[in-house]
Structure formats: structure tokens, C-alpha cells
């Protein structure tokens, strides 16, 4: 069990500022465990993430990446353990400052603009100007009136992302948002996410695409079999992975 000991530390990406402040996007997770039908799907995860970093969660299928993201966002209640954002346990007030984009975009049966307007209305924000801004920024001005579900797969995911950004989240959680998209669509998604990060959003991005992780990550959370195997600055993770599971994954030997 020794090699499975989680490595909890604040990565160097934000120069250690996070330990001083309690911004709502400073995440601290202790002993996070999720059991379903007696099976431990997420196992005693301890983690502390810096507020400003771009964190990529990696691991093979079934590693618990998506579950970890859902736990962090409060969509799934943990069996045990604690999640604190900015020193506060997760609640609706905190969750409203976060936005999540799912692997399969969940779009309403409405137009592109109405999908964005729906979340603006739900959050009580000033709508018209913000809607125009978002449509423009995410390249949907010309398609504003088009039914959302008639868009291509890549466009649908871009719209889901646009809708998430409409809420100006402090934390953006993305669950393999570009899986099964073509390279152009992947690039479009990455550009928008980078833009949101540059404007100050904390990003936690789940992917099993090594190239994408290298392009985006400040730090890497590597999951395997429900365990947090490794947590390290991206450069260090890719050049000198500490655990055998991470080495196997990076070498393409770990496929399950």
C-alpha cells in the first residue's frame, strides 16, 4: 500500500500564494472516499490545489477521474472525507461560483442563444449584454437562433462551454470535454478554456489525452483504480513520474 500513499502538496504553479489566502477556488480535499455497493470507486484522496493553476486530472478509463470531478462539484456525495473550497465546505453558494461541462454536452431543446439565456436567467444576471458578449466571444453570433441540437458535436460542446462561461465561474470543471472531437474542435475548446483560465478562473480538466495534458496543464493529478497515485507539476510528472502506474500510463502500457 505504500506506493499508493497520496502526495498532497501545493504545486509551485502559483508560487505558493494559495497557502496564505482562502479564495473560494483554493481546494482542499481530505480523505475523500466514495463507495458504491461495497466497491471503493474513489479511495482516500487527499489533495490541495492552488487557486490559479490549470489542473489536469489524468488516468486510464475507470480510474475515478470523472467521479472525482463530480465529488468536487458536489454532484455526488462522498461516503467519507471532506471537500473545502476556500476553507468552506461545499454548498450551493460555492457551487454557484463553479461551472461544469460534461463529456456529453447536455443542451436544452432550444436555440443556441436560448441555451445561454437560460443559465443567465437562472442565475439572475443582467442578460442581454452578457448574452451578446458570450455569443461573440465563443463564435456563435451567426448561429444564435439555430436550434442547439442541430449543431455538430464539436459546436455542441463549444456551446456547453460557452454556457458555462456565461456564469463567469471562478472554477471551471471540465469532464473530458473534447473526447471524440476532431482536432479543429479540440483546438477551439482548448482556446476558450485557456482564455477563461487567463482571465482568472481555476480550471480542473479531466482528460486521458497525453498531448492535451501537456499542452494545458500546470499540474497533474494522476488517478488509477480510484487512488490518487501522483500529484505533481506537469513538467515534473511528464519527465520524472514517481509511481510505476504513472510511468506505465505515460508509456502506453496501462490501458485499463
Amino acid at each position, binding site marked *: 500500500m505504500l506506493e499508493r500513499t497520496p502526495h498532497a502538496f501545493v504545486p509551485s504553479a502559483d508560487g505558493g500564494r494559495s497557502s496564505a489566502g482562502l479564495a473560494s477556488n483554493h481546494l482542499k480535499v481530505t480523505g475523500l472516499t466514495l463507495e458504491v455497493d461495497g466497491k471503493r470507486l474513489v479511495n482516500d484522496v487527499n489533495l490541495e490545489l492552488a487557486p490559479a493553476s490549470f489542473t489536469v486530472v489524468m488516468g486510464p478509463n475507470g480510474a475515478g477521474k470523472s467521479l472525482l470531478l463530480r465529488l468536487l462539484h458536489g*454532484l455526488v456525495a462522498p461516503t467519507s472525507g471532506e471537500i473545502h473550497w476556500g476553507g468552506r465546505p461545499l454548498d450551493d453558494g460555492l457551487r454557484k461560483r463553479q461551472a*461544469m461541462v*460534461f463529456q456529453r454536452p*447536455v443542451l436544452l431543446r*432550444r436555440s443556441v442563444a436560448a441555451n445561454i439565456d437560460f443559465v443567465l436567467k*437562472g442565475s439572475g444576471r443582467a442578460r442581454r449584454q452578457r448574452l451578446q458578449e458570450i455569443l461573440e466571444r465563443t463564435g456563435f453570433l451567426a448561429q444564435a437562433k439555430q*436550434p442547439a*441540437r*442541430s449543431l455538430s458535436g464539436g459546436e455542441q460542446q463549444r456551446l456547453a462551454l460557452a454556457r458555462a462561461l456565461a456564469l463567469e465561474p471562478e472554477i471551471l470543471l471540465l469532464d473530458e470535454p473534447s473526447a471524440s472531437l476532431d482536432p479543429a474542435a479540440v483546438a477551439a475548446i482548448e482556446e476558450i478554456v485557456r482564455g477563461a483560465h487567463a482571465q482568472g478562473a481555476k480550471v480542473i480538466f479531466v482528460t486521458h489525452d497525453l498531448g492535451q495534458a501537456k499542452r494545458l496543464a500546470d499540474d497533474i493529478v494522476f488517478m488509477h483504480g480510484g487512488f490518487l497515485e501522483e500529484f505533481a507539476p506537469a513538467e515534473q510528472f511528464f519527465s520524472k513520474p514517481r509511481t510505476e502506474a504513472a510511468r506505465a500510463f505515460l508509456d502506453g502500457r496501462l490501458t485499463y
Partner: protein
Amino acid sequence: MQDLGEAFSLAFGLVLAGDGDLMEIILLSLQVSLTAIAIAALLALPLGALLAVARFPGRGAILVLVNALMGLPPVVVGLVVYVFLSRAGPLGWMGLLYTPTAMIIAQVILVAPIIAALSRQVLEDLHGEYAEQFQSLCLRRHQIIGALLWDGRYSLLTVLLAGFGRAVAEVGAVIIVGGNIDHLTRVMTTAIALETSKGDLALALALGIVLLAIALTVNGLVMALRATAYRNAYA
């Protein structure tokens, strides 16, 4: 008893000529059933949506009850409404028995469970798709219900159509509480029952033809609307 061929030709004659009595009966039928559907929809759609999203003790029992009420026998509903509205009944002072209002009340009771049960199923499926996103957005229950009702609008049209079909075609309830009074509470189904028993097949057949035509038209319209919705990726 008229000759069947003669009855058919008379029936088409009445329909084509827009016979006054025939038109009056058709209009009253539509007025009663459409009003009943509108009221039942107002009551039952939010109830169906609430049952689709809420989880509470006893929910299963309520679902069984609502599903069972879909099969209410119209004559029993007619009888119960009659008892309540009759002069000696608790609501007798309202003087509603043998009026179109009494017929609307009976049809609302017949149709509301159908709309509630079917819309619950439609909206629960839709909610299964949206639930995580709605949870992520921290939406309140009324916002979720509003969104589901709007996004399920084309499927719900089919639900309302099922309710309308039940209302416009039933005879047992409206004949008991309406009394089939000429120029007052005579609707297509009660007129068909009466004219058939009197042997006046022409009027009965004419009404039957109109009833079928209405059913076909309404179904056609709803199907066309749903096809448009599918084409536009709204359904």
C-alpha cells in the same frame, strides 16, 4: 330503420350542407372537451412534472393511484359528479347539473389523471437527461419544472392529444351529468347514442363521420407539429 345506403347519403348531405343542428352539436362538443382539456392541463401538467422530479415517501403509491385513475370508467365519474351536483348533493346549490359546466367538470376528472400520468413519464425521461446539468446550475425546483415543461412541449402535445381523444369520445359521463338536452347539453357522442336508439341513423352517422374527421385532423396536426420539431431538433 333506414336503409344503410340512404343513411350514409343523408349523413354526408347533412355534413356538406353544414346543417344547423349538426353544427350546434359539434361546436358544443368541441367547446366542452377543449375547455376540459385546458383545465385538466393546467392542473395535471404541473402535477406530472412535480411527480417526475420530486422524491418523497409515498411517491410510489401516488404513481400507482394516478396510473390506476387513467382507467376510470366514465359512467362512474358521471355518477359521482351527478351525486355531488344533484339538488340534494353537497354542491347542488350551484345549479350546475344538466349544464355544459357539469360536463366539463366530469371530463376534467376523467382526463386529468391521463395527462398527469403520461406527462410524468415523458418528463421523468427528460429529467434523467438534464438532472446533472440542472444540479450543477443549482436550479430551484420551480425552475426545473418550468424548463422540463417547456423542453418537453412537443411530447406533451401528444399527451394532451390522448386526453382530448378520451374526452371527445366518451359518452358515459356527459350523458349522466349533461342529460343530452337538445340545444343545451347535446354533444356528438350523446346525440349518436340517442339517434341510434331512435333509429335515426343519418344524424348518428353524420356525427360519427365528423367525430372521426376531428380525431384524424387533430392527430394529423399534432404529428405534423412533432415532425417539424424533430426537423428543427427541438423534440
